[in-house]
């Protein structure tokens, strides 16, 4: 099957002239609307993609993109990291994690990254490595299972494989989060106006359009499913502005090359086989009902929190940290008294600065508007 596009996909969707065209319409609509416009992007990958492409510098002055809580590292409470670090006290146990979690400091400033090189902490690019790694190691292997719906099925699939191969030494320390419940909480809690959501393209690949219907009800706002290339993001923004102009409130899929209306049923069935919804504690936002996932009864023996008897994780914000507000879009990074002085990427205080896709880290590193 040859690619019918003239250029590779990523190049085609970064075309400068087409970007200019989209921006022209964005400026025209924003100009006509006249008032401050706020669009929240609910995905750390969008936060980074937007800033890497320099999009804030191209947008009209009255249009602001706010980063939401779609950064799995940012919304994982410190207690989770503390528990993961405590595992290293036990002899003969290996902790495996995606690279994203490694630099997150626990309450005492320690991080998993500091324990690399001793063989007790392993970085994984893919959960697919877990069954093999479990087979290689005799000792217990605990995987830090964080992520949203894009990642959840991959970990579920790996767990099923480990079951199949009877790798009894694989455990998951779960901190899964799901997006739609978080959107409901954001809509309910907002004191400042929000005009639209830019919805996470790859989460939507898995869940489809239906779970976002709540946005179409009373108190809702337009929700545009967008991809991650520059043209995808601009197109998503334009679609949101068109809806705002027309007074509409629809879930709109602008990432149709990847997102089917019904999402990926096979991936969802893999999730459903292994996991069930549960309440989850979001750093900054508190407990949101049905916003997490936990292992089903028949896999509960692989739950690391149970197996290793972890203390319950609570939310404890460092004094002065405004992450709770920043994660909800109620404060900008620059509004936080700690931003840039006490709290920097080298010495992060709160989660928004820790993760490279956190709002504060992104703001610090890439700048906010045109430099």
């Amino acid at each position, binding site marked *: 099957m040859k690619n019918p596009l003239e250029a590779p996909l*990523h190049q085609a969707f*970064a*075309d*400068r002239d087409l*970007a*200019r065209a989209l921006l022209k319409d964005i400026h025209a609509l924003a100009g006509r609307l006249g008032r401050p416009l706020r669009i929240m992007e609910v995905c*750390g*990958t969008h936060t980074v993609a937007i*800033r*890497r*492409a*320099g*999009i*804030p*510098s*191209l947008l009209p002055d009255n249009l602001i993109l706010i980063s939401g809580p779609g*950064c*799995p*590292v940012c919304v994982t409470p410190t207690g989770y990291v503390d528990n993961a670090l405590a595992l290293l006290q036990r002899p003969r146990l290996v902790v495996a994690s*995606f*690279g*994203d979690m*490694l*630099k997150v400091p626990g309450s005492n400033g320690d991080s998993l*990254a500091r324990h690399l*090189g*001793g063989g007790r902490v392993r*970085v994984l*690019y*893919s959960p*697919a490595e877990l069954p093999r790694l479990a087979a290689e190691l005799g000792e217990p292997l605990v995987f830090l299972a964080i*992520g949203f719906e894009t*990642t959840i099925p991959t970990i579920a699939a790996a767990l099923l494989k480990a079951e199949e191969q009877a790798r009894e030494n694989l455990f998951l320390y779960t901190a899964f989060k799901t997006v739609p419940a978080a959107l409901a909480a954001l809509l309910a809690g907002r004191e400042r106006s929000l005009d639209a959501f830019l919805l996470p393209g790859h989460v939507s690949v898995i869940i489809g359009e239906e779970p976002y219907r709540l946005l179409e009800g009373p108190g809702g706002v337009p929700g545009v499913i967008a991809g991650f290339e*520059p*043209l995808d993001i601009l197109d998503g923004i334009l679609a949101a502005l068109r809806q705002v102009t027309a007074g509409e409130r629809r879930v709109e899929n602008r990432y149709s090359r990847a997102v089917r209306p019904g999402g990926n049923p096979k991936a969802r069935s893999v999730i459903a086989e292994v996991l069930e919804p549960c309440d989850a504690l979001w750093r900054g936002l508190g407990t949101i009902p049905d916003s997490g996932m936990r292992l089903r009864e028949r896999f509960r023996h692989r739950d690391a929190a149970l197996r290793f008897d972890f203390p319950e994780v609570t939310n404890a914000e460092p004094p002065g940290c405004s992450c709770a507000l920043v994660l909800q879009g109620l404060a900008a990074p620059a509004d936080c008294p700690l931003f840039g002085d006490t709290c920097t*990427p*080298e010495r992060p205080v709160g989660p928004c600065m820790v*993760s*490279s*896709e956190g709002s504060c880290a992104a703001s*610090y*590193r*890439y*700048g906010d508007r*045109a*430099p």
Partner: protein
Amino acid sequence: MSAGGGAERITLEHGSGGALSRALTEELIYPLFRSPEYPELSDASELRMEGRSFLTTDTYVVDPPEFPGGDIGTLAVYGTCNDLAVCGARPRYLTLGLVLEEGLCLELLRRVLASVREAAAAADVRVITGDTKVVPAGKGGGVYINTAGLGRAITDVPLSARRIRPGDCVLVSAPVGSHGLAVLAAREGLPVAGALRSDCALLYPLCSSLCGLGEELRFMRDATRGGVAAVLNETVGGGRHGMAVRERDVPIDRTVAAAADLLGLNPLEVANEGVLVAVTSPEAAAQALALLREHPLGTRAAAVGTITEANPGKVVLETVVGGRRILDLPRGLLLPRIC
């Protein structure tokens, strides 16, 4: 061969100064580096050098010690030679300090030493003295190398970032991001096959070529850890000028770009070992590019940016799609992302 006393692996005894140490140095190391001028590699070697000289030192730690495109030995030689070359010096002599981890496989050591010799020969430098120590197991990635390098000045121009002026051109000699990605993929066993190779290379020929530009050449640096982003920031770090860089002009290999996208890394922030960044006057830029492109290592050299009065101390990137944002110093470890 009884090098190391017939053992397969390095033991603490190899570092003790006794018979086994002697066997290691005399049978494994000296034969590779003896020359008519230096028939014995003694504790200190005498040398004479005419004119102004430069001295540099660097220590090499890389995990894994062998990777596609090179090994720690190649790095240790080329890296130190490149540090001299970018200062406008022809590398002449090297020291070779080895810190070996107990348990290191002798075969690996042999291969690394052979790479040192090969690279030194290619760079036309002499390894004239050195030292070997052994540390207990668990303290290293097998082998650490320290080299000091001595070079002779080939230009009177004091190459320095202090000489840059608004309007000056910023050039990059070769595609970026290869080394760091190749090493990361090898170290983490990432499921990406074959295509990634370190660009580890000697930059002296490119540097000496550019020195022919005289005063029009302001400054050179090899882009190593922290990638091109680190060097560009270092260039304007003095805070007197800024830099505007055009993302679409930075040369990058498509395969490396694909790997970077897959792993969530920015090629501008990934280490190189064969990329030169040079700043020239605007008048000399075209000629500088022509000089670079004459060399096999510089065929994809490109002008990527300009020194500006605006935004002092900062590197402002014009993105592929026409936006503008700060290109920051890379921070923290290079790790693959899934988010």
